[in-house]
């Protein structure tokens, strides 16, 4: 571990945790613009978080310890995931903690706690949401893993920093297999983060909720933590996508001078990705729940196809 890079690691951690709600605000703003509304502004998620942190939480009488600690586990897991994905520098001392496969494991771990906590109180909507969340998760995880295997095969490593370094080392190379992986990854991103067409994050109809049903019983600071965690999750997913498919412009380990430029490039990429996501959500309609296996099955198929094309064409 290079001790001189610890400040870099801390910068990324603080930026990810601090700026994640900003991304949520930006996407909300873009969606409002696309729908010809004026929107609530970029800072709306922060206002919501502040309001929630000031409210005192209400707990069900039957709530166990699990219900209390789940939001902290969720937030901690997402913050950890956000800290180890290479965003603007590959010199991350904490990155060896988890490779791409362990990263998927962290997401699965938080999902299990979210589902258990939702079932803990024993309300109908919570259990229903938990079951749906696990359905989406078990379909999305294999697709995500296979998406990650394609760049791992290209760069002979499952560590995200090594993948990014080897993808940026060569001059421009077109990888057909990565095109498949990119489409599959976008579909997994939509499903895992509860965006349209899989789930509508803004819905207030409990029967159509997937992700929203999980935190129906939460209030106050617990709800704030959960919302914050899902904002970090979205930013982390977008950062994984950027690292795998458009990694150019990232600062290499030890190159301090490149750092501000790399940061600016990363911010531009995230802004573009957020606007693209909002556009996608505006164009698509929410699917029926029973169409989700079809959607994620297609993502899985595309990911496998990417692997096969990699073996056939060697690229």
């Amino acid at each position, binding site marked *: 571990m290079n001790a001189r890079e610890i400040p870099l690691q801390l910068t990324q951690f603080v930026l990810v945790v601090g700026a994640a709600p900003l991304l949520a605000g930006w996407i909300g703003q873009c969606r409002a613009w696309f729908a010809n509304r004026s929107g609530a502004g970029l800072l709306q998620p922060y206002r919501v978080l502040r309001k929630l942190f000031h409210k005192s939480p209400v707990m069900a009488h039957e709530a166990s310890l699990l219900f209390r600690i789940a939001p902290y586990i969720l937030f901690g897991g997402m913050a950890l995931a956000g800290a180890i994905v290479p965003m603007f520098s590959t010199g991350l001392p904490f990155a060896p903690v988890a490779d791409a496969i362990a990263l998927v494991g962290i997401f699965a771990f938080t999902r299990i706690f979210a589902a258990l906590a939702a079932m803990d109180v024993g309300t109908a909507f919570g259990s229903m949401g938990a079951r749906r969340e696990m359905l989406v998760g078990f379909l999305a995880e294999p697709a995500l893993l296979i998406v990650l295997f394609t760049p791992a095969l290209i760069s002979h490593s499952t560590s995200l920093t090594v993948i990014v370094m080897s993808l940026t080392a060569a001059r421009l190379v077109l990888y057909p297999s990565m095109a498949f992986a990119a489409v599959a990854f976008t579909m997994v991103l939509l499903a895992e983060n509860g965006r349209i067409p899989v789930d509508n994050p803004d819905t207030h109809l409990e029967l159509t909720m997937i992700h929203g049903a999980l935190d129906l019983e939460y209030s106050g600071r617990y709800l704030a933590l959960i919302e914050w965690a899902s904002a970090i999750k979205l930013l982390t997913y977008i950062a994984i996508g950027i690292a795998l498919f458009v990694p150019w412009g990232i600062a290499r380990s030890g190159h301090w001078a490149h750092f501000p430029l790399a940061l600016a490039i990363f911010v531009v990429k995230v802004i573009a990705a957020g606007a693209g996501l909002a556009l996608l959500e505006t164009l698509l309609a929410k699917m029926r729940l029973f169409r989700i296996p*079809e959607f994620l099955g297609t993502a899985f198929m595309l990911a496998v196809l990417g692997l*096969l*094309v990699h073996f056939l064409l060697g690229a």
Partner: protein
Amino acid sequence: MPLFAQAINMLAALFLLVAFAMLSQRRLANLINLYALQGLILGLSIGVVAYGTDQPKLYFSAGLNLILKVIAVPWLLRRLVRKLQVQWDRETILYIPTIMLLGLGLVIFAFNASLPLSELAGTINHNTLGIALASVLLSSLMMILRATAISQVIGFLALENGLIFAATSVTYGMPMVIELGIALDVIVGVFILGVFFFHIREQFDSLELNYLDRHED
């Protein structure tokens, strides 16, 4: 690897992607758009091969494919679909995940079968033979699975796309006479099948071909 060889590989991958998209597309209007897109990718990849190997003859082939498959045939099909008023019809069969798995199996088979063959070809794009073979098999699968006549015809046309693609990847295309002959066949075929569609529908009030089996007098 030179950039144009990478571009050929990229286009080949997109070709396969469109073949899968056609396999899982339910709406007829979108199916025709996908067919046009496949023709565009085919034309572009022939053009890139022509540039990479410096063969003027292939530019002609690329132009022919572009005119025929991006403009002429899709236009004919769209007109036909509009006249039959089926452009928003949906196929009813299709359980997509199963079809996708079947398709994946075919792709694995095609890739394996083509590996020793493509080693024999000395072309720069011999790797893409597997993709061409896979898309031929996928189009055949589409013809088997579809119930309506028009989507079967589109499957047939896509199969022809796959064959041209295979020819380009193994021997840099077919002789010009054969290519012109195929082009003529495609146009005439679409015309004749168009007439057939009207007759089928007049007789059975539907374009679903399983009605043909029940008709026994």
